[in-house]
């Protein structure tokens, strides 16, 4: 029976949070349309993940193992996802809006002659017509767009952190399908030579409950050292605006926003960030935003819950002291 297929990605021998988010999307589609959810899992030695995928809501698991799937490679993933789709014939394919889904999604849509919806934040059925309807941000977060498929299949990527991972149902089972992968090294037009993993001290930015971010107002890499100190004291991660990453003050992977990461912390502290919509697009999931800026008219105050008007450095330095006192760290 045609239904939804989600791509479940893995890291460090576990499922990614992004995979759980798309499974939540699959479950929601099942509730709306009554269609089963299949999960595709690609890599090597994946057996241990299969029961977990059932527990998180998959009805079928398509397990594709191959030497060339050991780590993500666009040609290999696109090709194998296409093979799985030919077999599963899904109406909907859901992928996370991460560096994998954003590359595989459109490639797969092209191969399936499917429609494509990028970075949806939600979907529902239109009351009058019963038709599926996706909502997404567009124009760099300045507008929302409603997108309705005219035909199926459709491939869609989910904006990260727009959906909560589903609850785990222990003991839930389903059907496992072992995919006979047809893949040759000669098919791969690109090859990963090396992966350079940046060292993370403390919490990962995308998972952090507290994020301390800096922008152009911070004026240089030295400023970020102060923000790192603050982050350490309040157990947060450090993020940045595009102005700061483009200047080379901090690595591109620290960028928060439309092009960078989506974060959903309980507390987001923005130092010297003006609050351009493209930046704010990455913090729409933040529960409390605090803006520290010298310009009381900065747009960031329009989305912040708490504001301080002042020099970022003076406030940050004193905040480190106050937080040390309060938290006893």
């Amino acid at each position, binding site marked *: 029976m045609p239904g939804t297929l989600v791509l479940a990605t893995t890291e460090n021998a576990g499922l990614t949070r992004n995979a759980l988010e798309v499974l939540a999307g699959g479950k929601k589609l099942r509730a709306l349309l009554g269609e089963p959810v299949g999960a595709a899992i690609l890599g090597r030695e994946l057996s241990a993940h299969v029961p977990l995928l059932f527990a998180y809501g998959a009805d079928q698991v398509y397990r594709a193992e191959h030497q060339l799937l050991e780590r993500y490679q*666009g040609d290999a993933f696109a090709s194998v996802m296409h093979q799985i789709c030919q077999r599963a014939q899904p109406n909907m394919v859901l992928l996370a809006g*991460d*560096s994998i889904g*954003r*590359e595989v*999604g*459109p*490639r797969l*849509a*092209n191969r399936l002659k499917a429609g*494509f919806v990028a970075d949806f934040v939600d979907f529902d059925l239109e009351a009058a017509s019963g038709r599926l*309807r996706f909502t997404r941000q*567009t*124009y*760099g977060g300045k*507008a*929302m767009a*409603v*997108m309705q498929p*005219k*035909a199926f299949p*459709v491939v869609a990527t989910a904006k990260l952190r727009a959906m909560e991972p589903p609850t785990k149902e222990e003991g839930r089972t389903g059907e496992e399908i072992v995919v006979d992968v047809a893949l040759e090294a000669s098919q791969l*037009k*690109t*090859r*990963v*030579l*090396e*992966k*350079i*993993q*940046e060292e993370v001290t403390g919490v*990962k930015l995308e998972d952090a409950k*507290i994020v301390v971010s800096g922008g152009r107002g911070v004026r240089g890499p030295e400023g970020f050292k102060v923000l790192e100190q603050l982050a350490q004291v309040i157990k947060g991660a450090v993020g940045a605006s*595009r102005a700061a*990453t*483009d200047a*080379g003050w901090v*690595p591109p992977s620290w960028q928060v926003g*439309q*092009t960078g990461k989506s974060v959903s912390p309980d*507390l987001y502290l923005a130092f010297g960030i003006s609050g351009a*919509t493209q930046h704010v697009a990455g913090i729409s999931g933040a529960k409390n935003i605090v803006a520290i800026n010298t310009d009381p008219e900065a*747009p960031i*105050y*329009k*989305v912040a*819950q*708490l*504001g*301080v008007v*002042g020099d970022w450095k*003076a*406030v*940050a*330095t*004193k*905040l480190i*002291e*106050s937080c040390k006192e309060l938290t006893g760290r």
Partner: protein
Amino acid sequence: MPLNIIVCIKQVIDPEIPASQFKIDPGTKRQVQGSHSLVISAYDQNALEVAIQLKEKQGGKVTAISVGAATAATALKSALSMGADEAILVDDPAIAASDQQGIAYVLAKATQKVGTFDLVLTGCVSGDWGDRAVPAFMAEELGIGCVSFVSRIEAKDGQVVLRRVVEDGYELIEAKTPVLASVISDDTNTPRYPKLKDIMAAGKKTIPTWKAADLVLDPDRVGSGAARVAITDVYLPLKESKCEMIKGDTPQEQAANLAARLRELKLI
């Protein structure tokens, strides 16, 4: 090894205008330009910069292509003044309302018409609609490899090594040419400011305009009718703003009050 590089340029209404000045036409569901300027979409400038740097090192030729209205010629002129050697505008009412799949198909056809190419560079995301999909669609159309979110490229003997920015660092990826890369910004590809003499020289160059007929397009694949997903509404999100301002006469007082407030809210 000289490189023939195609750079895809989209002209957009300045994406950095404040949200308060942003308007949607209720009829067309598109952004109203008003008095805002038209610019080269942000990351396309980074793509162009990467292309020009490669050309300066390796030799070769940079061709900028844009699918858009007649106004896009201005964007192409700026591309020429930055250092592109040639520019092509694809402008035809039959393709104007195409979705991203349609645009990618047209860009692929135009790229093939240009002839031999080693690299196709695009921005990683467009400044207006922002699907980050055109590059991957286009690579599929061309049947070539695709690497997204690339900040740096080095070329040697028919191979290129691309630095792909990922969530937790970056990958170095080797690819045979031709290959397509979508470019993300970093401190090595900040777009250059053109010199006055280059602006003058670019002003004198002619930009050919290609029509649908020049590209022998399948009419079923372009125009609004070809879109498989309909855009049924575009609206402005409602944002309430009730920002509580933290008081204090000195940064020390402000910081202490902020810390106390955050503690009260159980956030630290």
